[in-house]
């Protein structure tokens, strides 16, 4: 029987090429390689898919068009016309996360988004960007975002700190949501994979069937989390652009 592996082993970062700049470790890891694969594949889908620009789209072209339309609709519905400027960013974000999530489901691959560093970098980029957009657009008036309207002054003492804290927590919840979903899903798949080996040729079929169902669920989650990340970015952007409350 094969030796038992820890379900956490799949998340290990391995150096493929060791590079050092000064004291900084900038090695090319399995994580970086899968990021590059995701970017290349995503670019290929859009470039190759849209090369012919047929009036009646083929398979790849309609995939690219559906993705574009989906995010364009999302930005239009949630941010409005002013969101058009930020559409390329949100499309890139969505496609990158989607490809990283889905590629992670390929056996023996590496899930880039299962690392908090990666997701937190994206989330903090979004939040800092959104805050800067808010300040650039409204100046100091943006701070009124933290003051709920129609609330007695005595309550403001309590509510303003809560609003500020909930704003500052956004990048954490945004990043932990994506990272924990990926981590939990892949750990669960590995744990059930361990059951298959443990129960052997006779009993192993039940967990194997469960893994098949679970992989389908993970595919849904992979898409859903990319969608949630993109739509929350839209909502935060909308808050900064329109100071809705």
């Amino acid at each position, binding site marked *: 029987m094969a030796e038992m592996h820890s379900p956490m082993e799949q998340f290990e970062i391995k150096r493929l090429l060791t590079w050092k700049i000064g004291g900084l470790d900038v090695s090319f890891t399995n994580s970086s390689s899968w990021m590059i694969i995701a970017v290349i594949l995503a670019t290929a889908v859009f470039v190759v898919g849209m090369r012919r620009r047929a009036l009646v789209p083929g398979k790849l072209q309609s995939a690219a068009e559906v993705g574009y339309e989906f995010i364009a609709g999302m930005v239009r519905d949630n941010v409005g016309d002013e969101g058009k400027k930020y559409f390329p960013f949100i499309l890139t974000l969505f496609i990158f996360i989607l490809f990283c999530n889905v590629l992670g489901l390929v056996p023996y691959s590496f899930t880039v988004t299962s690392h908090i560093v990666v997701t937190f970098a994206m989330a903090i980029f979004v939040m800092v960007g959104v805050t800067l957009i808010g300040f650039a657009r409204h100046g100091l008036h943006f701070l009124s975002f933290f003051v709920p309207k129609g609330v007695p002054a005595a309550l403001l003492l309590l509510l303003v700190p809560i609003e500020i804290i909930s704003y500052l927590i956004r990048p954490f*919840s945004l990043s*932990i*949501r994506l990272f924990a979903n990926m*981590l939990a899903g892949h750990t669960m798949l590995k744990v059930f994979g361990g059951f298959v080996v443990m129960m052997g040729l006779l009993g192993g079929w039940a967990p194997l069937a469960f893994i098949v169902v679970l992989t389908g669920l993970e595919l849904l989650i992979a898409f*859903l989390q990319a*969608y*949630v990340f993109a739509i929350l970015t839209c909502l935060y952007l909308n808050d900064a652009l329109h100071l809705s409350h």
Partner: protein
Amino acid sequence: MDASAAKLIGAGLATIALAGVGVGIGNIFGSFVQGALRNPEAAPRVFGNVLLGFALTEAVALFALVIAFMILFVF
């Protein structure tokens, strides 16, 4: 008490959060089915919101999971 035993108990306690998440997710889909039966035509339009609500609620369960992992492996 032994520190490792306390760790295991703590990680188990962290999963209590799942009770709330179960209620939450059940609430989301229950309300959706109820609403969809009352007005089937409007159902497809709110399904995106249902999935968003599901993902946001599920995230709470995963926060609990992260806490459990932190208790088990970090400390």
